[in-house]
């Protein structure tokens, strides 16, 4: 068992495609919440084999895309401070704020380093003792435990020149907001795989019950996504609304409680701004007072400003499933991956970037 090739095998996927296509044509709207699913669905060409009437709508699960313009400006502000070096995940580099992007700040002399892991940012602090290393931290439940562990490690090592600017978010609050909107008319949710590795399939029980909505947790290989879609369509046709786990090799009902406990030790829920959705109560994570020496917002006294989103950009509406990228007047005209206006065109997981890359109009 290699845990990858088995789930890409066409001997498995071909009959699953046939099974999926046997469902009778009828209008069905399923939201894939996670940006990694959006990418995988495009990458494997799954949109071209869907049964007639089945529409896949991308949701708010791309962390870079939902980061509010005000937070992007705060990132740039931090990067421009004296004796500060910021570390980021690569996707953030080119997201434009009202004062340009981190990439532009770097071109004007700001120290910006792309890292693969928050631990790499901590190692930078050892390498540059004369600077404050600030990890500009975005991410959902999958990413937050590693950042919590990194802060605990910094505390253990007593590293004094390391801090984190947390814009971490949790996925259930925007789901609640979207599902409360009757115009969205969703028939099912394709639930994120690795977020669920941490929070467990149980996390969707509330929305399944409250909105009588079928929810299926899915993996990222073609066979996983096909299976999850079949499970959703079966529920929809049988008028069931349950939480089912289609990714049981990586997701349990309860999730990774060790990781959740670490997150809880370091972070405390706070209200957080989402692009296109406004401030959602309890949807963000701030660093607890106990670890305030590692909290960049306190150390550098950063206050986030409420910044308007770029003029004409429909990222916010696209993240809420209200519009598809081609509905945006800027899409593929003023806004392209080479010259992005909104974050959905920047992030490799952004819906606009996926539509552009795979030529969907």
């Amino acid at each position, binding site marked *: 068992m290699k845990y990858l090739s088995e789930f890409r095998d066409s001997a498995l996927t071909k009959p699953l495609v046939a099974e999926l296509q046997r469902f009778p044509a009828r209008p069905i709207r399923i939201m894939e919440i996670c940006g990694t699913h959006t990418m995988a669905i495009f990458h494997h060409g799954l949109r071209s084999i869907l049964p007639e009437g089945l529409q896949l709508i991308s949701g708010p699960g791309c962390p870079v895309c939902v980061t509010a313009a005000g937070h992007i400006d705060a990132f740039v502000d931090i990067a421009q401070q004296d004796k500060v070096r910021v570390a980021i995940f690569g996707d953030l580099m080119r997201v434009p704020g009202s004062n340009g992007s981190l990439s532009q700040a770097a071109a004007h002399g700001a120290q910006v380093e792309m890292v693969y*892991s928050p631990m790499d940012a901590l190692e930078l602090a050892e390498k540059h003792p004369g600077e404050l290393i600030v990890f500009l931290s975005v991410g959902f439940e999958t990413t937050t435990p590693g950042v919590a562990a990194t802060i605990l490690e910094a505390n253990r090592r007593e590293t004094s020149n390391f801090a984190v600017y947390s814009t971490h978010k949790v996925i259930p609050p925007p789901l609640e907001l979207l599902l409360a909107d009757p115009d969205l008319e969703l028939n099912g949710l394709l639930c994120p795989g690795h977020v669920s590795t941490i929070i467990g399939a149980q996390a969707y029980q509330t929305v399944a019950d409250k909105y009588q909505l079928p929810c299926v947790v899915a993996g990222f290989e073609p066979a996983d996504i096909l299976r999850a879609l079949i499970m959703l369509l079966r529920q929809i046709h049988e008028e069931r609304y349950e939480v089912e786990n289609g990714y049981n090799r990586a997701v349990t009902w309860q999730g990774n409680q060790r990781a959740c406990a670490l997150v809880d030790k370091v972070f405390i829920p706070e209200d957080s701004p989402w692009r296109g959705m406004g401030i959602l109560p309890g949807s963000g994570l701030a660093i607890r007072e106990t670890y305030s020496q590692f909290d960049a917002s306190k150390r550098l006294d950063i206050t986030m400003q409420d910044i308007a989103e770029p003029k004409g950009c429909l990222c916010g509406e696209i993240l809420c499933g209200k519009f598809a990228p081609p509905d945006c007047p800027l899409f593929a005209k003023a806004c392209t991956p080479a010259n992005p206006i909104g974050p959905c065109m920047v992030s490799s997981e952004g819906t606009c970037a996926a539509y552009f890359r795979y030529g969907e109009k």
Partner: protein
Amino acid sequence: MCLAVPMQVIEINGSEDDFLSQPTALVESDGIKKEVRLDIVDRWPNLGDYVIIHAGFAIHTLDPQEAKTNLRLLQEMAAVTHGDGETA
């Protein structure tokens, strides 16, 4: 950004109950080797186990039994269609 990949554990440094230094593992996939942290993994892996890696951390130890069940369920779902004589 929630991309995470399964990699095989080929070396473990440290132990589960070591509170002074955090344990790491050397993991491998297709010849690529990487050192990852085990701070947040749900189940302590054994040598040869596969773990799911995200941003330098193992977030889940894959259970071979669960994975086999997962694959069997997929095969069963695929077999339904195949058995009906659909072109597969």
